[in-house]
Structure formats: structure tokens, C-alpha cells
């Protein structure tokens, strides 16, 4: 044998045992929150570095290339947009002072604030807006959200390189810029409030390039050497920020690739100020602990989860089988996989999305109906004798170590009760993504959709419109095609009246819940908890860690400790430096 030497094997085994023996000791007890120094004083205080962390890492800091789920946090404090979202998810002015809707909804005119400045001190003008839009939507930009802006006049010609400028964006004065659309588009403002088109400094150039120093007009600015890949990112206050008095913080640091348990212990020590990632046992305890409850909050639900059934592959090409699956799943069981974060839900749009209609039909657990649908499908199943049902095992693909690996095991049990036998195939994440988006490959998969912008279109269009079907990398993983639904969604996108739009999306929801290309199962909500000395921290409907208005109110006890820690680091650094010098001299 060469795998692991015997002594190492024993050591490994002994280590496992020791770890297990230690695990039950004190790890379950939560430390007390670290109090604010002036809890009764609502006036913000200036200064201090906010320390955040994550188990993940970021790839690149550029609004034109939002390449992972974590970087929007960083982008959000570095880059300001013409418009932004408020805490409730409504579009509000930011760099734009105001806007007008002209030409029956086909033209948006934005008037910029005067005196708003980039981090390099230059004023933000309409030219910068156009240049930044063209930089983000140009042929060379790896912008994953570019298609969101396809209703801009001349988008296709500009993206393909046939035209040098984007005709749909025109400068009408130093502080006035127009966006012209080829047709009315109810999603235009919500997608404009996202990050890709946010103005960047002139030094970024007219075309996208990997080699640049992040520079925008957000409340914090990037510092040279402030990032180390896979370790941390630091930003400091932008003194020229256009909102008077903001930000209160001197700066923010993110530390990356931190183990979940380590994050918790650092948070309890006050080495991290806000905690966003949790072990399941910890989030349950924090939510229930009365000492911590005032300082924790759930984000609004921005994502849905479910079982996507490929409508082109048997047995899910049979609508009755799909209806049977949708009725057979007890969504409460899914919740128990992660009780604090998962909520049972049988609809394609999360409840927090504007336009969500609670009165619209949803999918529900109904075992008798599920068996009836199996009978109608021609595959009756008798639960007493466990006979009948679909005669073949059905492959079910999930990726390793994700939540779906657990919900899959529940699904196997639920569907066995109506005569559908699933075989779980665990693959790595890229394979899973490839299989789910590949035509004719996966009969049924676990799938989820995270909101890009708070609008029902962001859920219906990519997941269920037939134009989202592709041979590879199909967003419509159910390969569902329904001309009536397509027409409904197209009309809803052009409809600017919210009431009329709501009626159209309610009808779309009825169709999708009834024809069941997905069995919708749950929504997922993240939990944030902060130390009491982090003030003005509130959950946001769209962004994670919206800290522009936050301030720090540490007690004297924390202050000296932080200083002491800083002093220790300095002393250690000096010591190491002198040792290096000594070696160099030798």
C-alpha cells in the first residue's frame, strides 16, 4: 500500500476522534454581543474601519465584468450609478438628479447632478456616462449582463462591432444624457440600477481592459495595493462623494476564503463586524438567542429553488407526470434541511419582488392529487403494494456538497411514494451546469434562480420563455415552450402600467404553476448579524452589505484592544523588517 502510511492513517483517525471529542465542548455557546458606546445617541459618528469577511473570493473588480456573487458588495461602494435601489428595492436617483420618460416610454432622459466627482477628482459628465456604457457593452467586454440592455437602439450593431458607437445613448449636454429604446421596456430602469453601466473614470478608457485600477464615483475609493488576490480588499472614504456627510466610515476591509467556523469565532471576538456566512447550527442559535436577535435580520427572499423537469425527455414530456411531481413534494420537508433559511414556496417569483401577486395560484403538496395525476398519465401507482408507476429509474444530477445534495435525498423519498424512482448522480459543479443547460441530457435537476433585479421578468423570461432555450447553456432548463406564455411575457415586458403588468404576470404564474415545467419548492433567505457597535446597518432588498450609511460606535474597551492589536502587528512587522535587514547586511 502506498496511499497513506500506516502511522499517518492512525494519526488521521486519531485526529478525527479527537476532533469529535472536542466538538461537543463549548463551541455551541454563543458569546455576548459587544455593546455600542453610545447606544442611545442616534447621531452618526465618523471614523473607523468596517471589517467584513467571506468564505468565498472575488475574481475581478469591474462593474463591466461582474463575474461572481461576492464582488457586487465591493462594486457597490466603489461605483455609483445614474440610479440605484433604495432599501425597499425601488429605483431612486443617484448620480442622476432626475429623469424623464419620453416618446411613449421609448426614451429616458437623465439629468446629472452637478459637481459629482470621480475618485480621481474629475467631474462626472454625460460624456463619461456614454463612454462607460460603451465600455461595458462593447464587443470585447465580458459583461455577463449585456443582454439585459438589448432594447437600446443600435445594441446589436454595436455589440457585433458593426458600429463604433452605441446609437441608443446620446449626450444632450454636459449634464444630460438620453437612452433610447427600440421598444417600450418595463425592465429598463431596474436593469440600469444594476452595476454594469455605472460610470468609471476616464483612465478606464473607452474599451474594456483587464488591466485597470478600479475608479468610479462611489462613496469609497480603491487604494493602490489595497487588494491581494485570495486574501483581502481594502477601500477608503472618497472625500468627494456627492452625498453630503457620507460615508461615515474611514474605510472597509473584506477578508476572503475564511472558514465558516473561523468566521463565527472572529465575529464573536469582534475581529469581524458583520457575519453573513454561517454553519447551520450557528444561524439557528443566533436567530433564537434574545441577546443577538435585535442585531440580526433576514434579507428579503431573492431566490427561488425547485426541481426543473425537462419537458422534452420522458417521463417529463407528459404534463400529468410533471403535475404529479409538483403535488408530491412536501415543501415543509425541504425547509427542514436548513430551517432558518429555507421557506416552503410553490411559485416562480419570490414574494419580495415588486409585482408579486399573493392571490395568484401556487403549487401545493397534495399526495392524493399526485397519485391521480400519475393515473391520468397512464402510470398508476399503488402505495400499499408499492406497484406501478414509471418503470425505469430516472437519473437526477446534483453537484457535490451543495444544498441540493440534501434536498435530492428528500426528493427521492417523496417521488418514490408516487412511483417515480430517482437515481442520484453527484457530479462537480461545472459538469452539473453543463448537464442542466444541455438539450436532451438531464430529465430532472435541482435548480435555483437568484434575482438579478427586482422584477418578475427576471424570473419568467430566462426560465420559461422559449427564446431562452439553447442547445448548450440553456437558461430555460426545462426546455419549456408555450407560445401563449411567450406572448404574455412579451406583452408584460412592454407594459409600463404596474397594475396591468401585475395582471399579466399573475396569468403567467397560473400557466407555469399548472403546466409545471418546474416543481417550485422553496425560497432561500440569507441572514445577517452585526455587532451592536455597527450602527445604521439595515438589510437591503437588492444589495448585500449596503454599508454606505453605517457607522461604528465601539466602546473604549474595544478601541484600545484594536489599537493594541494594531500595535502588536506593527511591532511584529518592525521586528521582521529588522531581521530581514540584518540578514541582508550579512
Amino acid at each position: 500500500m502506498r496511499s497513506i502510511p500506516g502511522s499517518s492513517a492512525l494519526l488521521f483517525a486519531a485526529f478525527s476522534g479527537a476532533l469529535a471529542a472536542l466538538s461537543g465542548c463549548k463551541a455551541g455557546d454563543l458569546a455576548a454581543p459587544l455593546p455600542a458606546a453610545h447606544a442611545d445617541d442616534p447621531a452618526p459618528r465618523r471614523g473607523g474601519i468596517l471589517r467584513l469577511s467571506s468564505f468565498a473570493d472575488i475574481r475581478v473588480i469591474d462593474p463591466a465584468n461582474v463575474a461572481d456573487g461576492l464582488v457586487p458588495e465591493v462594486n457597490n461602494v466603489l461605483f455609483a450609478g445614474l440610479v440605484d435601489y433604495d432599501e425597499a428595492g425601488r429605483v431612486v436617483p443617484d448620480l442622476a438628479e432626475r429623469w424623464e420618460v419620453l416618446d411613449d416610454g421609448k426614451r429616458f432622459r437623465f439629468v446629472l447632478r452637478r459637481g459629482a466627482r470621480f475618485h480621481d477628482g474629475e467631474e462626472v459628465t454625460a460624456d463619461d456616462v456614454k463612454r462607460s456604457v460603451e465600455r461595458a457593452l462593447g464587443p470585447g467586454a465580458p459583461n455577463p449582463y449585456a443582454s439585459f440592455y438589448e432594447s437600446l437602439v443600435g445594441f446589436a450593431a454595436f455589440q457585433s462591432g458593426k458600429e463604433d458607437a452605441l446609437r441608443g445613448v446620446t449626450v444632450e449636454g454636459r449634464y444630460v444624457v438620453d437612452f433610447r429604446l427600440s421598444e417600450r421596456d418595463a425592465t429598463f430602469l431596474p436593469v440600469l440600477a444594476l452595476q454594469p453601466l455605472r460610470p468609471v473614470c476616464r483612465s478606464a478608457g473607452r474599451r474594456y481592459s483587464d488591466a485597470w485600477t478600479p475608479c468610479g464615483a462611489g462613496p469609497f475609493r480603491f487604494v493602490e495595493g489595497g487588494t491581494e488576490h485570495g486574501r483581502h480588499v481594502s477601500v477608503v472614504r472618497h472625500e468627494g462623494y456627492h452625498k453630503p456627510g457620507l460615508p461615515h466610515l474611514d474605510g472597509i476591509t473584506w477578508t476572503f476564503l475564511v472558514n465558516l467556523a473561523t468566521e463565527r469565532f472572529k465575529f464573536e471576538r469582534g475581529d469581524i463586524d458583520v457575519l453573513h456566512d454561517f454553519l447551520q447550527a450557528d444561524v439557528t442559535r443566533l436567530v433564537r438567542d434574545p441577546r443577538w436577535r435585535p442585531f440580526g435580520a433576514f434579507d428579503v427572499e431573492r431566490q427561488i429553488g425547485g426541481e426543473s423537469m425537462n419537458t422534452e425527455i420522458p417521463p417529463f414530456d407528459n404534463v400529468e407526470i410533471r403535475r404529479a411531481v409538483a403535488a408530491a413534494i412536501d415543501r415543509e420537508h425541504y425547509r427542514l434541511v436548513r430551517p432558518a433559511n429555507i421557506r416552503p414556496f410553490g411559485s416562480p417569483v419570490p414574494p419580495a419582488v415588486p409585482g408579486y401577486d399573493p392571490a395568484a395560484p401556487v403549487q401545493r403538496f397534495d399526495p392524493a392529487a399526485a397519485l391521480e395525476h400519475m393515473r391520468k398519465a397512464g402510470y398508476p401507482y399503488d402505495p400499499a403494494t408499492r406497484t406501478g408507476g414509471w418503470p425505469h429509474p430516472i437519473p437526477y444530477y446534483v453537484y457535490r456538497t451543495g444544498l441540493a445534495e440534501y434536498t435530492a435525498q428528500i426528493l427521492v423519498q417523496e417521488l418514490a411514494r408516487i412511483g417515480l424512482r430517482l437515481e442520484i448522480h453527484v457530479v462537480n459543479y461545472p459538469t452539473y451546469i453543463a448537464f442542466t443547460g444541455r438539450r436532451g441530457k438531464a430529465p430532472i435537476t435541482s435548480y435555483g434562480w437568484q434575482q438579478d433585479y427586482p422584477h418578475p421578468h427576471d424570473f419568467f423570461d430566462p426560465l420559461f420563455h422559449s427564446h431562452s432555450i439553447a442547445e448548450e447553456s440553456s437558461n430555460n432548463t426545462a426546455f419549456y415552450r408555450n407560445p401563449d406564455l411567450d406572448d404574455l411575457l412579451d406583452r408584460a415586458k412592454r407594459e409600463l402600467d404596474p397594475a396591468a403588468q401585475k395582471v399579466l404576470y399573475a396569468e403567467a404564474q397560473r400557466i407555469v404553476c399548472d403546466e409545471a415545467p418546474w416543481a417550485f419548492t422553496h425560497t432561500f433567505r440569507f441572514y445577517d448579524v452585526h455587532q451592536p457597535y455597527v450602527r445604521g446597518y439595515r438589510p437591503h432588498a437588492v444589495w448585500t452589505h449596503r454599508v454606505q450609511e453605517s457607522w461604528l460606535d465601539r466602546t473604549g474597551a474595544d478601541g484600545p484592544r484594536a489599537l493594541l492589536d494594531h500595535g502588536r502587528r506593527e511591532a511584529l512587522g518592525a521586528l521582521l523588517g529588522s531581521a530581514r535587514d540584518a540578514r541582508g547586511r550579512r
Partner: protein
Amino acid sequence: MTRRARLLRHRGFQIGALLVLALVLFAVLGPIVATHDPLESDFVRGLDAEEMPVGPSRLFWLGADRLCRDQFARLATGARVSLVIALLATLLSTTLGAAVGIAAGYTEGERVRVPVTSIALTAGAIALLAAGRPRLAASALGAAALGLALGRRGPSLPVDLDALLMRGVDVLLAFPFLLLVMAVGAAFESTSVVTILVILGLTSWLGTARIVRSKVLSVRRLEFVVAARALGQTTPRILLLHVLPNVAGPIAVIASVSVAQMILSESVLAYLGAGLAPPTPSWGKMLFEGQDFFTGAPWMLWAPAAFILASVLGFNLVGEGLRDALDPRE
């Protein structure tokens, strides 16, 4: 004192044998006496008031897991899985390692005439393997081996079999074991007991081959082997009747330690997510699932960890006992 007496008086062997016996009994009887189906969730009784998995109780002897399944039933079924994989993978790796070691050691310093057809088939097998046709490659390799064993007719080439085999072993030893196993495991769209045991068996024979070869090098020079060759006995007969019995001791020791390694390897693979597909229970996977709960439901971690510890310790102690008992210096 006889070897058997030395073995039975060996304290480590006694403890190891007891642990192994307990493990075997647990694997055989555990699923029978368990009060729950290992694959069935009990959402009503499997959670406490805080919606955490319940701890050890009369209903759930070793607590429940995060999907409210009985840990005892899953550990017992996991024990069967671990034992079956470990024993069969050990059989495979030991057989392969012993065959290569004996062939290399016995032909050391000589050039063996290998039929050209076998050489061609081996080259073809490597090409097929590179082309992603493992089944055809295995068939070709089997045919090559058959040709090597039986082929006395037709054209042949003199080959330094020992150098060829041992340099092959050196090359394979250079691969990091876990990386190799995970890469092979990831190449399969789904993993079953057979897949795992074949992967482990085919990647773990290298050390055995080296040890057996070194032992054969000394055995082949003993008088009775030299005499058998002088009397004209066939090579297969000499290897089976004279060489193999004299290297059986080391092989038995390697095999018993190998079982422990296989249990550990299977657990590591499962822990890293490259093991058996769920919902089949596996100790390594249970360990992985338990770590998310170590602050709230520690039994989910210590139960599989304790079983891994006990079984690895048991087989290692048995191996140590065998080694001491068979040591000619004692």
C-alpha cells in the same frame, strides 16, 4: 513458540481482532437490529424543539442526521459498504501487486522472451486508454497477459520484465494518490460500490508490488528454488509451489494493513465528495455532513469518526500482530 501461539499471545493482535470482530458483527447484525430504515427520514421525531437533529435516545440510539435519518442504521449500513469495498479492493490490489512483484522479482537480471503479440496488445491497450476506451483497453491488456502466460510459439522479443514493471511502478508512484483517485472517480458520471472498489484496488497495488518483489529476490536464490529450476520444473509451477508460499506471510501482513487503508481511503473519498452517491450511507460522507453541526449536534461528527478510528485501528493492530508473529527473527 509456534507462530500461531506468538500471534494469539500478541496484545495488539488481540485488541485488533476484537475490534475487527466487533466491526464485522456490527456490519452483519446492525442493519437487522436497527429500528429505522437507513434511507428513510423521520421528520416527525427526528428533530428537537429547536429543529435540530435529535441526539442519542431510545428511539435514535446514536441520534439523527440532518435529514432526520437514524445514525445507527446508517452507520451499520455504512459499515457493510466500507467492509465490502475495503475487502474486495484489498483482494484486487494485493493480487495485482503480488503478481507484478513476483513476476518482477523472479525475472530480475534476466531477459524474458515476450511474444510480439503481447507487446503489440499492451501498446494497443495504452493507446485505447489514452483514447478514453477503458473497457477495450482492459480487454487488450487481458489478451496480452494471456498471450504472455501461454504464448510459446510465434515471434518473441527479449524484454527486461523486472525493469519494465518496476519503472512502471515508479511512474505511477509519482502521482499523488488522492489526486489520482479523485481524478479517476470524477471521470465516472456515477459512482457505485464496484466503481469505488475498482478505483481503490487499481491504484493501491504499487507498494505491494515493491515489497513482494524484494522478498522474491531473496527467495529465488534459496536452494529448493534453484533445485526445482535445475530439475526442469516449469516457471508457473515454481512460482505457485515454491515462491508464493514463501512470500505469503508478508502478503498477509500487507493485506491486513491494506484493509485499514482502504476503509480510510473510501472515507476520505466520500468526505471529499467523490465517494458513493447519496443516499447510500458512507462513514466519510457522514463525517462531512456532521462538521456543519459540530457546534449543535456533535454526535453527527463523533459517531462516524469513532467508527473510522476503531476500524482503522483494528485492522492495523491485526497487521502488526501478523508482522510480529511471522517475523523470522523472533
